[in-house]
Each structure stands twice: as C-alpha cells, then as structure tokens.
C-alpha cells in the first residue's frame, strides 16, 4: 500500500504544508499567536461556521501555524489529515473519544507507555470505556479479546520500553476482520523508520514531544487519519456514519468521504474537549521536524554503537533491542523496519535495583529524566518512575524488571556516550560487588 508522494521524506519534512507567508513573504512558518480571526462580512462568517468555506475561526479549532504542522505530519505519514493536540496523551484521548461511547471496549497491547496504560486501565473505565490488555505477539489472544463492543485495537510500533515490535500487518488484519480500526502510536519510530499506514494501520498518533521535535522544549501530540478505514461498511461507528445532532444532523462519511474521522475529531473533539496545541508549540515542533531525517539517522547509528557496547559488557545482564539477534522480534523488525527500530531501549544491569540506581547516579552526559527522543541522551529507571503505577504482574507483562534501565540515545558523539556509560557501569559494578 505504498502511497504516492510528491517528494521524499527529507524534502517533505522541510516543505510539506508550508509556503512563504502570503502576507509578508516570511520563509519560515510564522507563529500566528492569535485566539481568533476577523470575518470579512457576515455571510463569510456564517459560511465558516457552517463548513461552507475552509478557514480559521478560533484557535481551539484551527490555527495557521498548527495547520502547517498538521499538514506536514499528514504528508510524512501518508494520511488524509491530522490534528495537533496539546500532548501525545491528548491525541490518544481524541482518537478514542471520536469513535467511542460509554460501553465501548478497546484491545490494547500490554507493552504501552505508562501514561497510555493509565488512561486505558484506570481513567477511561470511569467513563464506561474498558480495555483488555494482551500480548500483541499472540494473535489468538488478540482475537479472543475482541468483543462485540470492541471499537479499537491499539499498540505502539515498538512497545515501551522493551521494544516489542508490533506486527502491524497481522494486527491490522485481525482488526479489519472484525470491522474495527488499528491505532498505532509511532512516537518511537517516526515516519523516518516506519509509515504504519503502508503496513495496514488506520490511525497513527505521536507524542511530538519526542523524536519529531528532538529538542525537548515542547509538549505536543499529533493524530493522523489514513482515510482508508471504511466506517460505513463496518456498521459499528454511528458517530461517523449516522446523523450527528451536534452539527445539524451532519453525516461525516457522507459529507467528508475519506476524511470523515479526522473531520469529526476536529469538529467535535477539539471543539468540545479543547485539547488543542498552541501555535508556538507547533512552531517549535516544526523546527525540529525539518531535520527529522538527519537526526533519526544519527539516533539509529549512535544507538547501534551503544547497543553493541552494552551487549558485550560483563556488567550487563541483557539488552533488549531488536537489532540484536537474540531479541524476540529481531526478524520481524528487520522485515518491517529495515532502517532501524528506535533509539530508545532497555537493558538490565547485574545486581538489580541498587546497581541500577548506582548506574544512573554514575552517569554524567546522560540526563536522568522522564522523557525520550531528545537530541541529548537520556536515562531513567522505569519501575520507579514512568511505570510506577503498574503492579508486578503488569510490569512483567510489559517486560520491565526491577533493574531495568531505559536509555534514549541522543546525538552526541558515540565515543563520549560510551565513555559515560562505562563510568556508570563501573559505579554499578561496585554496588553489585564486582562483575557478576
């Protein structure tokens, strides 16, 4: 399902969706820091409100700066359209709220970002939306978890933090066999490493805070619609295929064809839930996206150097990265993601929790914080931070141990990164009482 594109990724990352500013000729996309927009006349205003004209009314709904970002990620992913949200979590919530009601059910991979797990496991059930978590490698488990009220399958391109590779062609086939879409979180991979729509996914979300931006200075999310899922044929999504009282009985599939989902997400989700992205945030994300290709190439090559170093070090009990032949998904990753699988991965230090803490404290270049995908290298101990709400069983299901360390490999010189890791490992070895 390779889509037509007018240019290659590096070119789209710089140009798609943006033109020199028509008002000033500014080459960079300006920050349109405004809440609202003047109407030329009353009929024009009425036409904007009644969806007779495209344009901007109020920046909760759309904004010229965020629109460039939305169009650019759509171009990079090969989607019909996108919505920029206040965060990656807001993108996930927007996707769910657009196609679900109380009583709806989700089947999700158990290998998820802790924040996504919280939303699905604890928060959404308060609103009547429940989730069954499954091992996304287990086709039978996915099929068995699907119920008549299931409306979505959700997973991450590479699961956080064990890098479980989502077999998108297989999981999307299961979803489509059951008349439901597959939503994929592609935060770790970005369109540089994989374009999930080409593998069968229907919706893609990103935390744009991470690799898409690369600078770690902004919070933002993106939700992209492939336009391929047949909401009418499914018969399970009256939100899109039947009259919507919230907009004069508009039927989204009738009026917007392949853009039905993303249109309702904007007309209802942004309008009513309001988790929009600020134009300044969109501007920052656009600056990062311009260099996506060259950054991701360096992230991947640095990661390969770091993985190779750690995998051969005596103080390391194991490294979980699909580049390694002993990773469960090595063959699948080579097939689906030939350019690499991410610069975020985990490894286990011999000596358990105390050795892990000593390792983190012994680092200098790696910043100890709760983020990934920065140009700077990052480190964290998931069991005590990002995944601390998960019980032991959930942690185990997500492939996280007490001594698991997560690295996000940045763009520094790999020799310096390895020197820093050596220092951390020496500290860990002291706590662990020597090698082994």
């Amino acid at each position, binding site marked *: 399902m390779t889509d037509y594109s007018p240019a290659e990724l590096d070119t789209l990352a710089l140009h798609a969706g943006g033109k020199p500013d028509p008002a000033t000729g500014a080459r960079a996309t300006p920050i349109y820091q405004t809440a609202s927009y003047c109407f030329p006349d009353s009929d024009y205003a009425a036409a904007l409100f009644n969806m007779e004209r495209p344009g901007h009314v109020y920046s909760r709904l759309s904004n*010229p700066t965020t629109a460039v970002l939305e169009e650019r990620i759509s171009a990079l992913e090969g989607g019909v359209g996108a919505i920029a949200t206040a965060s990656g979590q807001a993108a996930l919530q927007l996707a769910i709220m657009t196609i679900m009601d109380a009583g709806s059910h989700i089947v999700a991979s158990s290998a998820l970002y802790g924040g996504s797990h919280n939303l699905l496991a604890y928060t959404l059930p308060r609103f009547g939306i429940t989730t069954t978590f499954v091992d996304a490698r287990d086709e039978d488990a996915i099929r068995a978890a699907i119920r008549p009220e299931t409306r979505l399958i959700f997973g991450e391109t590479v699961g956080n933090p064990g890098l479980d590779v989502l077999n998108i062609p297989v999981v999307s086939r299961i979803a489509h066999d059951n008349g439901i879409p597959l939503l994929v979180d592609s935060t770790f991979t970005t369109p540089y490493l994989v374009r999930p729509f080409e593998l069968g996914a229907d919706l893609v979300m990103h935390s744009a805070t991470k690799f898409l931006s690369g600078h770690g200075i902004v919070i933002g999310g993106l939700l992209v619609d492939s336009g391929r899922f047949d909401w009418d044929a499914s018969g399970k999504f009256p939100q899109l295929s039947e009259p919507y009282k919230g907009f004069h009985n508009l039927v989204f599939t009738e009026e917007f064809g392949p853009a039905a989902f993303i249109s309702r997400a904007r007309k209802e989700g942004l309008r009513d839930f309001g988790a929009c992205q600020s134009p300044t945030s969109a501007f920052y994300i656009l600056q990062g996206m311009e260099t996506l290709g060259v950054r991701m190439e360096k992230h991947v090559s640095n990661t390969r150097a770091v993985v190779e170093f750690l995998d051969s070090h005596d103080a390391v009990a194991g490294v979980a990265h699909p580049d390694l032949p002993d990773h469960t998904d090595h063959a699948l990753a080579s097939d689906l993601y030939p350019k690499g699988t991410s610069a975020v991965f985990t490894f286990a230090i011999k000596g358990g929790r105390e050795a892990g803490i000593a390792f983190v404290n012994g680092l200098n270049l790696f910043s100890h914080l709760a983020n990934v995908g920065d140009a700077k290298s990052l480190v964290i101990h998931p069991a005590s931070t990002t995944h601390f709400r998960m019980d032991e069983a959930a942690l185990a299901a997500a492939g996280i141990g007490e001594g698991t360390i997560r690295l996000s490999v940045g763009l520094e010189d790999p020799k310096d990164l390895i020197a820093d890791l050596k220092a951390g490992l020496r500290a860990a070895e002291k706590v662990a009482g020597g090698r082994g």
Partner: protein
Amino acid sequence: MKLVSSGKDTYLYTNNKTVDPSKPSVVFIHGAGFDHSVWTLFARHFSRHDWNVIALDLPGHGRSEGPVLESIEQMASWTIELIDTLGLNNVALVGHSMGSLITLEASSRLGDRVTHTVLIGSISPMPVSEPILDATANKPGAAHSMLTSFGFSKQNLMGGNPNPGMWMVSESMRRYEDEAQSALDSDMRACNAYQRGLEAASEITAPTLMLHGDADRLTPLRATKPLQDALSNTRMDIIPGAGHSLMVEDPNHVLDQLKIHLL
C-alpha cells in the same frame, strides 16, 4: 437522499433537505472516479441560501447503484432524467472535469431549462493519454498516483491546503481508491471518446462560467480556447497557482465565483 431514477437506486446529496421545485436549484456533477463529496462545501453554501442543492453520484460511483455509464451522452441522458424525476424546470448545472462534459451535453439538450452553466477544469475535446488509459485499465495504483500527481499544480502538491490540517494528495488517492477500478477506467474512456463538446457548447444559451487553474496539468489552460470560442455567453475566470483540483486547491475562490455567477 436516495431515489430511483432510470430504474436504479440513485444517491443525491441534498444537505438533508427535500428538493422543492419552486426554489432555484443547482446540480453538481463530479469528475471521473469521484463522487458527490467533492462538492460538500459549495452545496452547503447554496443550501443555506435556500437553493435546492443536488450533488449527485453518477451510476456506479459513491452511493449510487451501477453499472457505470459508458459515454458522456449516456451520463447526460441519465442526469436529465434525474432532473425530470425531481420535477425541476430551472436548474444551474455545475460540473468538474468529466462532469463539465456532462454539463455541456446536458445543458445543450435542456435548453432554456438551464439557468446557469459552470464548467470547472474543462476543455473539449478532453483527450486522455494512452499511459493513463493503460493504467486505469491495468494498473489502478499507478493510475491513482498519476492522476493525483497531475491533478494538482506543482506548487500545491507540496501542500498549503486552505482546509486546515488536510493533505490533499492522500485525500485524492483515497477518493480514487474508494471507487471501483472499472468506474475510473470507464470514465476516462468516456472523456477521451466524447467529441460533441464544441457542438454542444454552441447550443448553450445560458450564461456560462469557466473556472480554470493557470497551472492545470491535466486540462491545460491553453487548451480551453476552442471551448471558450464555442460558447456564446461565457466568462473565464483563471485561478492563479491552481491545477485541476480547484475545489480543494482553492475552494474559497471557487465559491466566490459560483456566488458571483449564480446568486
């Protein structure tokens, strides 16, 4: 709404309103491989201004029952029968690309029942190249890519969609993918075969608006002259920087011109 016309289930987008023959009416006719939804913005506007809006799905397209009609003449006959079924005596016809050829043919036959004619991205004759015909017959994915690639101006292929957040390249691909391969192939051959366009144009008495992008790469602006010359009461409006997909490349300009011409 759905109705039976020419013995087939036919879908019309009417903005959820019943067609009232006492009101002014505008019939929107889509291009090859597309359906009614390319007209949503414009139909909503004229509906709010108390016009009957009828954005039809040609047989075998969108939500209308097939089979597809194989010639522009057949499509025009079907459109006229639909207008008769709706009891409309005064209609404006708006057509894009292949729909503009249907508009030409139907307007020439309907005579003074047509109040206004609008031809968007129209030339006549409308030859279709052999590589495209080969692709629509044998390589649908390649056909969708070719038509999408040439369907926009080079400038607009890189985006800047006035509809916030929309990437019109992929939207165009999805629209082609959603239609039956046979419909697109048949439509393209119908455009290629239709030779009566200039004769039909000479018979049209209604004021005619031609809307064209100056960067149209499927129906180049320079090829519009024979049609302009054949129409006796026409005005040409050229949209700068736009290609063949005017309703998505510059919908505000299209709507402004439709308002000038129809309202």
